């Protein structure tokens, strides 16, 4: 097989992968970058609201300590504290660096980077570009990356991560255009493959979100952590059916949008969790003043954390107070009553939302409410890594961004993902480069590589005839996960999901396809399916193990938070016999100075 050699190989070209590649390249090592799609099309492009960093441009009371405490509170204190600390401290520099690379953020009146309000953030903290911040970031990183001599391999699918003598040694994959297999041999490998939202039927994720890095890492022996924590974003489009799941940015609420049930009631005032009571407005007037920058006002309850808002929406729908198509109403048009030129303001601050509803839903958001409901958005769980270096338990294997675990705990705050991928993308690239200087490449075992390629070709041998259609199996899996391991979970349903998963694995093994190897989406679907099944099993087993409700994980049979469960993370790993092992790993102890910061910020 054709073999390429690199010091650092980055898999994934979204924000984290690009940032890692740039950093490794800046360190002077030879870098290869593999993209599943074309460069610049990764899921980061869809991020809307902004990137969280305590720049304190809009409210000078903000600093890393507040951001750190907000992140820990949002994650319900099962976050890796060191990652949350590094993230809060380093995010401002990472954002300013983007400006030096050409990013054009919206501006404050005195010409600095503007910041907006977002759920769970105490002060306006999200640097943004209207509602297309992700596009701005990926384009900036992409343009920075291509001038640094990084070799980019577009539309390339990785089928196996190779480990030689206990060290990550390379990957096997194929280029989609011709279907030819290649081996990449590298001293250090960075996984930056994003999320796994495609395990669910209703999702905001693009086709790429099939948990590839999670599954590649797992199969190679790395540990997955926090897989039970899935973020269901409270506001996805729900009507018409073909747009179900498409994201409606939290920025709508940050700009003053309100959630209403069918009676027109702002139901978010009905349930404000205790840890947030002191910081949350108890009347509409105060909430409005907050969105308009009044520093003495507390934030409206629409800006509570995503896990909570999603559950409140579910409650309204279940109680028969939902909108016609099974969601609730999100109204931004009402601000016209408060702001002169309100319609223009909405179009300027939320241009792609305006566009999206106008073109896909025949709705003019400047004059009528949107219908929204929860959509699978993000996975807090991922590969377990060292906080400072982002290296996994396999030497030479690093992970960053959504496919790594730790910073977000049980629930991610909006805006913390774009900053996560900058901060930890950079760190992963930096430490991967150091690792590659200190450790020679180890060869990929040719027989093992050939075995991986042969296994990937199996669907061709099955043909169609009596074989399973991979598209059908994928759709069945998505329906099943949505029904049994979704927003509201129960022991019996999840046990049933495990039975279903075993049956689906059997079907996936018999997936067959037509056509040849050149650009064959049926083939890609069959390969993605294996990753989705691995990730779905890890989600389900971890969710069964956590017998409490916390953050993105809600158990109908254990609806309360349990102090016992606040002391450990749940980790899954491939056992010696190939079955999935689940264990509890104690949280690292929180240093007193950080504990004090958290206590101080509770008022």
């Amino acid at each position: 097989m054709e073999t390429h050699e690199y010091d650092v190989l980055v898999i994934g070209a979204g924000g984290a992968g690009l940032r890692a590649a740039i950093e490794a390249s800046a360190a002077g090592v030879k870098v290869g970058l593999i993209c599943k799609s074309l460069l610049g099309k990764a899921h980061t492009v869809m991020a809307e609201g902004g990137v969280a960093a305590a720049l304190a441009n809009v409210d000078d009371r903000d600093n890393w300590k507040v951001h750190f405490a907000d992140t820990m509170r949002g994650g319900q204190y099962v976050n890796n504290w060191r990652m949350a600390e590094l993230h809060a401290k380093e995010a401002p520099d990472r954002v300013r660096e983007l400006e030096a690379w050409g990013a054009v953020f919206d501006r404050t009146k005195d010409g600095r980077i503007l910041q907006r309000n977002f759920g769970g953030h105490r002060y306006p903290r999200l640097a943004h570009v209207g509602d297309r911040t992700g596009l701005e970031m990926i384009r900036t990183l992409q343009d920075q990356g291509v001038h640094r001599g990084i070799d980019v391999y577009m539309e390339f699918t990785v089928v196996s991560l190779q480990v030689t003598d206990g060290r990550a040694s390379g990957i096997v994959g194929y280029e989609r255009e011709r279907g030819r297999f290649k081996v990449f041999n590298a001293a250090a490998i960075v996984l930056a493959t994003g999320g796994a939202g495609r395990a669910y039927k209703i999702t905001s994720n693009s086709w790429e979100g099939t948990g590839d890095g999670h599954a590649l890492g797992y199969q190679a022996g790395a540990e997955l952590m926090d897989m039970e924590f899935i973020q269901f974003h409270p506001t996805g489009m729900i009507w018409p059916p073909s747009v179900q799941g498409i994201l409606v940015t939290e920025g709508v609420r940050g700009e003053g949008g309100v959630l209403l049930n069918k009676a027109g009631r702002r139901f978010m005032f009905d349930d404000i969790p205790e840890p947030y009571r002191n910081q949350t407005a108890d009347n509409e007037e105060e909430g409005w003043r907050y969105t308009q920058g009044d520093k003495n006002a507390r934030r409206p309850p629409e800006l509570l954390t995503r896990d909570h808002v999603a559950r409140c929406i579910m409650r309204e729908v279940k109680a028969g107070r939902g909108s016609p198509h099974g969601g609730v109403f999100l109204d931004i048009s009402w601000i016209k009553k408060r702001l002169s030129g309100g319609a223009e303001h909405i179009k300027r601050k939320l241009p792609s939302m305006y566009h999206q509803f106008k073109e896909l839903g025949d709705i003019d958001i400047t004059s009528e409410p949107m219908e929204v409901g929860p959509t699978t958005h993000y996975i807090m769980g991922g590969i377990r890594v060292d906080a400072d270096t982002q290296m996994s338990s396999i030497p030479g294997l690093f992970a960053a961004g959504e496919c790594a675990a730790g910073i977000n705990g049980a629930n991610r705050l909006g805006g913390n993902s774009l900053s996560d991928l900058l901060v930890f993308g950079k760190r992963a690239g930096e430490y991967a480069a150091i690792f590659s200087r200190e450790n020679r490449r180890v060869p990929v075992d040719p027989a093992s590589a050939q075995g991986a390629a042969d296994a990937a070709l199996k669907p061709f041998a099955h043909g169609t005839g009596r074989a399973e259609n991979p598209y059908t199996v994928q759709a069945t899996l998505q329906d099943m996960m949505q029904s049994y391991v979704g927003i509201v979970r129960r022991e019996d349903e999840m046990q049933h999901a495990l039975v279903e998963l075993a049956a689906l694995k059997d079907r996936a093994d018999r997936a067959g396809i037509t056509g040849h190897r050149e650009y064959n989406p049926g083939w890609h679907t069959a390969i993605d399916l294996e990753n989705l099944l691995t990730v779905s099993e890890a989600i389900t087993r971890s969710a069964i193990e956590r017998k409490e409700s916390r953050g993105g994980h809600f158990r109908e049979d254990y609806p309360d938070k349990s102090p016992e469960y606040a002391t450990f993370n749940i980790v899954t790993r491939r056992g010696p016999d190939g079955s999935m092992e689940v264990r509890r790993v104690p949280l690292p102890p929180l240093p007193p100075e950080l504990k004090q910061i958290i206590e101080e910020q509770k008022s």
Partner: protein
Amino acid sequence: MTTAGFKVWRSDDAGGHFADYSVDVVPGMVVLDAIHQIQATQAGDLAVRWNCKAGKCGSCSAEINGNPRLMCMTRLNTLNLLEPVTVEPMRAFPLLKDLVTDVSWNYAVKKAIKPFKPRPPDAPDGTWRMQQKDVDRVQEFRKCIECFLCQDVCHVLRDHHQYDRFIGPRFLTYAAALEMHPLDAEDRVQELKDVHGVGYCNITRCCTKVCPEHITITENAIIPLKERVVDRFYDPLTRLLRVFKS
């Protein structure tokens, strides 16, 4: 349930042909949904490029009933379903398979444009100051999702194949975003004239009409670049001054 007929371009040994498919129509459906339905039920190997299905990544560009569009943003209820809907690949780029084209030329072109080079920071902490009104115009260009529909429809590329002499509307817009960036200190005017071929554009506005992000490519990006080239190289007074200087 109603059905709609589709004629989709399929590659074959002789080049390609339109294949007929029938699709069940659901409310709000877009062309990309129809293509996915065909893939899942009738033609598993039908090649199509797509990512976000929300008009944000610019991957699913195609020609629908002859019009360059994003498949994910083209609703079936805007099309005449009494006739079959034709879906074919962008014709300005080499075909890889079915609806997928080789757009690598675009990446090569972009790399050849001089990158952003900021002026020294304005503040001691290494940051800059810019007013919103000064960034508005480059923010318009930076909305571009690189779907390359403007390139597809540009006759200089599509009909006259000037790929070696003309970078096309996408990259003129990109160059404009750099040239008009308040912090940028680089000069690309010479290259715009000699290498990037801004003079080849004869302002037919086809690019502006197909832009799914509604960027006013011709008036806001290309014409100002043409003016910069004219000011520097063709203004009679400047020319005269240059003669005297040399």
